């Protein structure tokens, strides 16, 4: 990843009828970056991708590509290629013809095209599939062909619209590694749209969390996970305890009537805030050793850990722990200061919406 801004979206707005899908969006994408647009359905992530691809024109704003305004450029004149949600393979053509489509239009030589087909099929591990028809392939294979068809055109940017959405879990996980490998081999920019936070965390250099047409947070996977800027991001990225609290002073927060030391500063005194505590960051200790005390109300075995609900100070704390505490037992709750993430209360109604479908 370099620091060159390859694509710059400036003040992009888009509505369908009365529905605002994107509102004054600003975002830049760097060269050779794996950037993921993450959010629930209807957040505007796909529309953003389609505006970059040229399938939608923004109502307002500009799309700058390598310093040039391409807002009005039709898709066939853009140096980007797309891998569509349901693959969108041409079912009346063989695999080879599908892959050759873009190259034939660019009037490349036959030898060049054949080389490219071979190379692309090898890259996606489907050598020898040249003469098969798309509908004789499995979903995962069709997905690979869709990728091969896009990358033979040597795009500067590959747009991927929930490409793994239709695949089953195991295949999806395999394809995640494949995509990372591909990205590294090709050395191009990937813009990836998904509603799956795990996919986003695994593959991305940068994650853009979106909701209701607004960007909620931009950051590395670690940033997004460990330091969500608001309750929406915290809730969307993994399980967490989001608790209304009061910032007593710098480095001290009052959660449900009990003061907890924390590491955040600059929120002011006696300011209402939200705190996020990840369930795996809560230590269950003997009642007398805990900052607060509670009772275990439910217990589930989740494989690598136990998932427990602990009722304490009138709030049901979600806890992940490798130690088992039977239901009904009294426990103490302890949280390290740097595991308490303080967030400003959302200011607008829009930001507050934490309705998540997934």
């Amino acid at each position, binding site marked *: 990843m370099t620091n060159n801004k390859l694509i710059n979206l400036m003040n992009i707005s888009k509505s369908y009828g009365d529905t605002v899908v994107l509102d004054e969006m600003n975002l830049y994408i760097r060269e050779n970056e794996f950037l993921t647009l993450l959010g629930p359905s209807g957040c505007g992530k796909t529309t953003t991708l389609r505006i970059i691809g040229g399938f939608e024109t923004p109502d307002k704003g500009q799309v700058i590509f390598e310093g040039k305004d391409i807002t009005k450029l*039709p*898709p066939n004149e853009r140096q980007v290629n*797309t891998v569509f949600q*349901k693959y969108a393979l041409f079912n009346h053509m063989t695999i080879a013809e599908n892959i050759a489509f873009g190259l034939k*239009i660019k009037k490349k030589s036959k030898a060049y095209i054949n080389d490219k087909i071979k190379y692309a099929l090898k890259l996606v591990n489907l050598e020898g599939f040249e003469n098969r028809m798309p509908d004789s392939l499995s979903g995962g294979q069709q997905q690979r062909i869709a990728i091969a068809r896009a990358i033979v055109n040597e795009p500067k940017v590959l747009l991927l619209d929930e490409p793994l959405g239709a695949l089953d879990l195991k295949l999806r996980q395999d394809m995640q590694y494949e995509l990372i490998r591909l990205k590294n081999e090709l050395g191009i920019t990937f813009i990836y749209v998904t509603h799956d936070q795990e996919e986003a965390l695994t593959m991305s250099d940068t994650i853009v969390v979106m909701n209701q047409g607004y960007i909620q947070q931009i950051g590395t996977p670690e940033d997004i996970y460990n330091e969500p800027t608001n309750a929406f991001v915290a809730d969307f990225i993994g399980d967490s305890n989001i608790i209304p609290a009061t910032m007593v002073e710098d480095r001290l927060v009052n959660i449900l009537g009990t003061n907890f030391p924390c590491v955040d500063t600059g929120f002011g005194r006696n300011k209402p805030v939200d705190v996020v505590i990840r369930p795996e960051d809560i230590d269950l200790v003997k009642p007398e050793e805990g900052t607060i005390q509670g009772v275990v109300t439910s217990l589930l075995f989740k494989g690598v850990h136990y998932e427990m609900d602990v009722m304490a100070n009138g709030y049901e704390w979600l806890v992940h722990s490798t130690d088992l505490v039977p239901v009904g037992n009294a426990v103490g709750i302890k949280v390290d200061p740097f595991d308490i993430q303080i967030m400003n209360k959302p200011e607008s109604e829009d930001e507050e919406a934490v309705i998540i479908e997934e």
Partner: protein
Amino acid sequence: MKDVTQVNKPAKRLNGEAGHHSLKIKKTTWLSMPYLLWMAGFIILPLILIVYYGITTEDGAATIKNLLLISDPINRRALLLALELSLISTIICLLLAYPLALILNKIKMKSNSFIVMIIILPMWMNFLLRTIAWQNILERTGVLNKLLSFLGIGPLNIINTPGAIILGMVYNFLPFMVLPIYNVLIKIDRDIINAARDLGANSMQTFIKIILPLSLPGIISGITMVFVPALTTFVISTILGGSKIVLIGNVIEQQFRLGNRNEGSGLSLVLMIFILISMAIVSKYDKESEGSSIW
């Protein structure tokens, strides 16, 4: 012993399930009995009879005389004219219908059913009457000629010409060309077209390489749905062609009106052969174009 029975139990259960399954298939198969009988009596038997009468004399002796009737100059001319007019009509229908279907697909009015409705609606007026209305429009003192003379163009002789018959065919069968093409077009995923554009195809290339080949099944069924009724019509030629223009349909109808069952069947057989040949040609083209020949 005890163990054995316990092992056997699930096996028995399995058998029971299998038995139930075949029972279920049997249960639905009897539902087709009325239809099977109906088909045997009113689809298969009639076709056998037409072949039988076509290759026998009135006394039941085998002959190919009835089939050879087609070589009679009048009959041959009727068949060739019918082929010519129906071919022209089919081509005109295709040329008119394809752009229409494309535009309708683009407009995508409130609902698909609305578009289908306005195309089908005329069919709710009796087709004989609609064809008779064309008499009104086309005849020497008709609406069209009044309009033309108003514009200073002399009265045209359209009624009772092959042109009038072509117009009647195009009019009557155009919806049968529009609907199958439209139905195929609306099913083409928007992203398939986007993908072609994304890969560098301009709108013309997208049309030729993607939309046209993908809509071919619709074109094929449109062609058969127009060509077959146009080739075999006797109504349109009777109403718009006067008594001078005779198509193969008129010849066959006349044979049966005169009670010449065997001759009529013989000519029908020949007609069926022509229908089969044309359908074979069309479907062969369909298969070829599915491959790579479009490129």
